[in-house]
């Protein structure tokens, strides 16, 4: 049983397209996150939801919109994709900031 699962694992798309990444956790955690890892392996927080409420919204272009339909799911929708959006996106979950667990990542390539 995968604790934090993301789909798809790989996503190749053209500039200007709109795409979504989905995440689900079965740990019963109350908080979910999106992190972005660039080509230099640097992981940076993008968004976080606690019990479906947005609690962290870092400086991210408003082309990126997270949505949390319930505590176990967090999706990331990206409009008008740009070359610079190419990266690996990681979903994570925690229980009030503890017991952080990461998914295996979605490698997004914009061509």
């Amino acid at each position, binding site marked *: 049983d995968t604790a934090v699962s993301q789909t798809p694992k790989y996503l190749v798309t053209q500039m200007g397209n709109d795409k979504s990444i989905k995440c689900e956790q079965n740990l019963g955690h109350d908080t979910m996150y999106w992190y972005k890892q660039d080509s230099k392996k640097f992981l940076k927080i993008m968004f976080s939801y606690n019990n479906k409420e947005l609690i962290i919204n870092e400086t991210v272009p408003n082309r990126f919109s997270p949505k949390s339909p319930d505590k176990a799911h967090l999706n990331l929708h990206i409009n008008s994709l740009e070359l610079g959006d190419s990266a690996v996106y990681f979903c994570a979950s925690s229980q009030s*900031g503890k017991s952080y667990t*990461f998914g295996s990542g979605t490698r997004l390539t914009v061509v």
Partner: protein
Amino acid sequence: EDQVTQSPEALRLQEGESSSLNCSYTVSGLRGLFWYRQDPGKGPEFLFTLYSAGEEKEKERLKATLTKKESFLHITAPKPEDSATYLCAVQGENDYKLSFGAGTTVTVRA
């Protein structure tokens, strides 16, 4: 803003050659300092959380220590399977997010 600096950027070791990785940090009130291991194409895998200066934790060939300004990850008699990128992150007192360093990529040759 929380800051984490890891050194060295890369480390090449012979099997059995012990070494240490450094993580220097600044944070306004430390809730926890985390070490993760990341293999190519995979997500970060949790290793340790340290909460206060003087704390130490061990797991197999790895030992993490914490002071008020830095943390060390000691690898004792490493094996090729210890090859990975090791990530350090801090969490502030009232924070849910983790602030990561850029990682140290360790390669252990047989």
